[in-house]
Every structure is written in C-alpha cells, then in structure tokens.
C-alpha cells in the first residue's frame, strides 16, 4: 500500500483510539443527584442500654459454680436493639430496628444511612429508643431545616451531650 495512505490510516486509527480514551475518561456525566436534590445522612455510633440489669445470684446458684467463677453478680453483656423513626413534615422518611453488633450483641449499634430528598424547607422530627425495657422513645429531636440543592445534612447523635444534633 502507498506509504502516505498507510500513515494516514495509522493516524486515523490512533485518533479513533485516543477519542475513545478521551471520551470515557470523563463522559457520560454521571448524575448521582438531580439538580434540585439534597442528601440527609444519618450516621452515628451508640452503645445502647444493656438489655438486662445485673442480678445478685442466689446462694444455691453460687454453689453450683466452680470456685473461681463465684462472682456474686451476674451482669449480662447483651445490649438493647435500637429503634428509630425519622419524619420530614410528618411523613416518615426512614425507620428501622438496628441490632447491636458483636458476637455477644454487646458492641452497640452503628448506623449509616443516606437519603436523597428534594431541596427545600422541612420540619425534621426524629426519635429513638435504645432501651428494651422502656416502652417509649428515649431521645427525641425536632428542628426546622432548610436544605439547599446538593447540600449534605448530617444527623449525628451523642448521648453524652443530650442526643441528636445536625451539622
């Protein structure tokens, strides 16, 4: 084949290859959100209440144990599950019962949830229960929020400072 034609064909093939490389290197644009959406991220770790109180062993029970294991108190390590519900303008956005982690269910819970919502103003309400022996919410939180497009609102929780807070 003619040399010029050959090099021309080569150039064409290189151009085609580079065009593929260039295109998929940034395109098509991926939309993880619509332009008018925002994200609420609910994320915290929390050691829920122990599911059983400590109990003093009876004399008989103690006698049945080997000598080196005769501790007077029996303190189960298992923790309560965590129940929560999250509302935006009184519509439920998410709710869940989260079991404690760990082989003995003794490591508390670890929560991470992302929710995509339309940007705008909302009244946010969230409650949780972290004690299986209590029949009502142990923490509650209410707050007016304004979500801008593409904003990420973090709902965090810290029992030591009184419960939920947003960032």
């Amino acid at each position, binding site marked *: 084949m003619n040399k010029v034609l050959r090099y021309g064909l080569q150039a064409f093939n290189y151009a085609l290859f580079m065009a593929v490389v260039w295109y*998929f290197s940034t395109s098509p644009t991926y939309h993880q959100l619509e332009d008018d959406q925002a994200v609420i991220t609910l994320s915290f770790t929390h050691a829920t209440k122990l599911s059983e109180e400590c109990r003093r062993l009876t004399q008989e029970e103690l006698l049945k144990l080997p000598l080196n294991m005769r501790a007077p108190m029996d303190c189960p390590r298992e923790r309560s599950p965590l129940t929560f519900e999250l509302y935006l303008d009184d519509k439920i956005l998410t709710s869940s019962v989260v079991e404690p982690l760990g082989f003995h269910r003794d490591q508390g819970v670890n929560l991470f949830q992302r929710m995509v919502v339309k940007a705008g103003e909302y009244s946010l309400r969230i409650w949780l229960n972290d004690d299986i022996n209590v029949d009502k919410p142990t923490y509650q939180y209410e707050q007016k929020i304004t979500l801008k497009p593409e904003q990420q609102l973090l709902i965090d929780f810290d029992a030591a400072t009184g419960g939920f807070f947003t960032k």
Partner: protein
Amino acid sequence: MNIINPLKYAYLAMEAWFNLAFGSEWNPLYNMGRLAFFFFWIVFISGLYLFIFFDTSLTGAYASVEYITHEQWYIAGIMRSLHRYASDAAVVTIILHMFREFALGRYRGFRWFSWVTGVPALWLVITLGITGYWLVWDELAIYVAMLSSQLIDALPLISGSMSRNFVGEQLSDRFFSLMAFLHFSGQPLFLIFALWLHVKRLSLVKVTAPRGLAIGSFIGLLVLSIISPAVSHGPADASQVTAALELDWFYLNVYPLLGYFTAGQTWLITLGTTLFLMALPWLPAKKTGPAAVVHLEQCNGCEQCAEDCPYDAITVQARTDGAKFEHEVTVNADMCAACGICVGSCPASNPFRQKNEQLVTGIDMPQMPINEIRNTLDKTIADLKGNNKIIVLGCDNSLDYSQFETDSIKVVGLFCIGMMPATLVEYALANGVDGVFVTGCRTGDCYFRYGNIWMDKRFAGTRQPVLRRRAKRSRIKVSRAAITDGTRFQKELIAFQSHIEKLNGDEELAHE
C-alpha cells in the same frame, strides 16, 4: 469441524484491517499486552514527576494538584494528563487483549494459567486507578471515598463505620495517608508481582511495545494531553454532595452500581463476574495433548529447543547419561503446550537421516512423532498425480487446508508450522515434489507464539537449524492465512502451481 464463531470472524476481520494500516509487526492487535506494558511505563514515569509536586496531605493535596495543572501546566500539567490518559489507554488495551484471547479461543487448556492470573491483574489496575482518583481530593474523590467506604462497610467482620469519616467536618487524615501509601507503593508492587505471575509460563515476553506503535501511541497521548488536559473537580467538601460528576468510566464504573443496588449486591455482582471470568477456561475444559519427550540418545545438548520453546517448558541440565556432551534437556510436562516447536528446533529431526529405519529425534511429540510425519509425507507424495506436484505443509490452527486438495495438491498437517524441520521442505523436493507451499498462522500472529517467527528465521538462515542455502527456493513459497483468508489463500496456491508449471516447462526446455 468448522464451527462458525462470529466473535472470531469479527476479530480476524478487524485484525486484517489493522494489518493494512500498520503491517504485521506494528499491528496493535498483535501487541495488546505489550502495549499495556508500554502505557504502564508512561504512567510510571509521569507519576514520578507528579510525585515531586504532590502534597501528600488531606489539606494540601488539592492545592498541589491545582498547581500541577494550572501553574506548571507546560510540564507538570502535561505529565498529569499523560498519567491519566495512559492509565485509561492501558485499560482499553487490557480489555482488547482479553477480548482477543477470548475471541480466538486462547484461554483454555494450557493457557488457563495466563487467563486466571490476568483477571486479578486487571482488578489490581482498576483499584490502582481508584486510589489515584482519591488522591486529588476533589468532589469526585470524596464521592469515590464515600462509596468505597460503603462497600467496605458492607463486608462482614469489619465493625465500625468507615463511611462516617467522609461526612461532617471531622474528616480524618488516616485514610488519605493509607491511599497515598497504596497508590505510590503498595498497589504498584502487587501489580508487578501479578504481571510477573501472569507471564510466568510464557517465555520471551516483551514488556515494551514495538517502536512504531510506541511512537505512535505516545504522540497520540501527547496530543490528547495538550488539546484536553486532565483537570480536577471543585475541592472536596463534606457538607456537599456534587450532583453531576465527570466519571472516568474505565476506573470508576463500579460506583454507579451503588445507585441501583445495595453494597452487598454490588459485591455479589463484582465477585460473581470475577469468578465467572476466572472459571471460563473450564467452561468447557480443553485437553492439551501429551507433552514432548526427550530421546537422550539423539540429544547432543545444543539447547536450541529450550531457546525456542514459547512456554518455557524445557530446561537445560547437566548430562545424566554419561554421554560426552555437557548438557541435556528435560521437559516440564506441566508447562508443555504440545505445540511441537521443539521438534522443528532439533537438528536430529532431519528426515534425510536414518533413511530406512525408524527416525528418532532428540525431542519428539508422542502423538505425532517425526518418524510418522516422514511416513505420512512419503505416502502423500506417492498419492500425488500429474506433473506439477505440490505439497502444502500446513499448521492445524490457522485454516483447514484439506479443502484445497486436488489430485496434484496434497496437505500434510502439523501442530504448528514451527514444528516443521526446515529440512522437511528439502526432503519433499528431493523425493519427487515439484513445489512446497508452506503455511501457518498470519504473520505476526501464531497460535502457539513464535512458531512462524522461528520458521522465517530458519528459512532466512538466522536461526538453527536452517534451511540450507542450496535449497531450491524458487520451488518454495510461504503463504499464511487465518480461517477467514481462504479465498486469498486459494488464489495464491493456484498461482504457485502455475509458477511451478512454468518452472518445470523452463527446466525441460533447458534440458533439451
């Protein structure tokens, strides 16, 4: 049996098109693995340069990449673009390389090892790209960080949440340092190991592209880097989720899956695909013929077979039989692809030897020993009719040559054209054949690697054992073909027969 395999046909057509433009030596489709290595070299060298200016901290990274891209655009910026685009080009070539081996059925049997080690090597390349995107610490990076954490959090056994590190304000430096470590040293070292393993069962592997291809692709990348330099997104901001991202689909393709599936399902899809790919060589399995066997009494330890073996299956060792030679060879049956190339390499395979007895050579294929090849050739020659007798010495993996047989054209098939001792051609001519038509896979390609290259060199006299000078070259023609080249092949064969006819006529005239 001639099963129509559309993938293979499509691939061979593409290959023929590239042969037109590039010639066989520079045909990119023959050099995909090598081209991937070449792109890795560009990535490595540009990476070294970028490392000088990169600030390995969460707070400084973005600004340093901005400096690289905008202030020092003329060197560092171009290096960044080369780093990006060569990485992307590597993925394209690796995928094409994989597709080629698949389309041509070169992934089963003795090739299982290369195939199975190729898959994790590709995954390593992808994760290396992922940590690279992480280091820019822009909006895309925090997206990658966030979704990678979700994937990692979905794994059992790891308690605690990694995802939490990328929301709110308390972003921690530790993941960033880990990624920098992985990207700069951990992953590259693993990749080198994986690629070493990948080609471990092959010999004579080249880890750079042929010159023409190297120059062409480098110019291509350079032009692309100048026309459309790689740039960052806005700086990472944990209180924002960027709606529109310009993803690099070569590397970040797994993340959009998380928009449709849970992290657990995404793992299942990814691992399922990986396992499926890795299991392909056994769906269904393909048997490799029995390995080559050494006949020490005929081996003089010349080592040519060990040098020619494309699968590194022959080793040279000290003589064990007390013969006066220093060395002998042994075959590692596990590595042997049963291509027979060693038979063509052995000087003892000369069919003029041991004329009226069994021909025994130094290294032979049990399922088609050289003695049997000579017998078949003798019989086939005896069957030829007419005045212009042609023998086609064929390779079983290119084209079914038996379809071209006529009374005066007959075929003797071999496993690979590299299996043919050059002296076999002279033997045919000396025993009543008027012309020998030598075939094989397309030049630049060989089903078994190197078979037709060795043949060319033996014919050119540059590799032992050679086709002797005095061989009647005008009665020998080399014509190569793939399964799709039947028409052209037939034309060349007919033209060769006419050429032989004319030659015979001329010689008769000269005699008279």
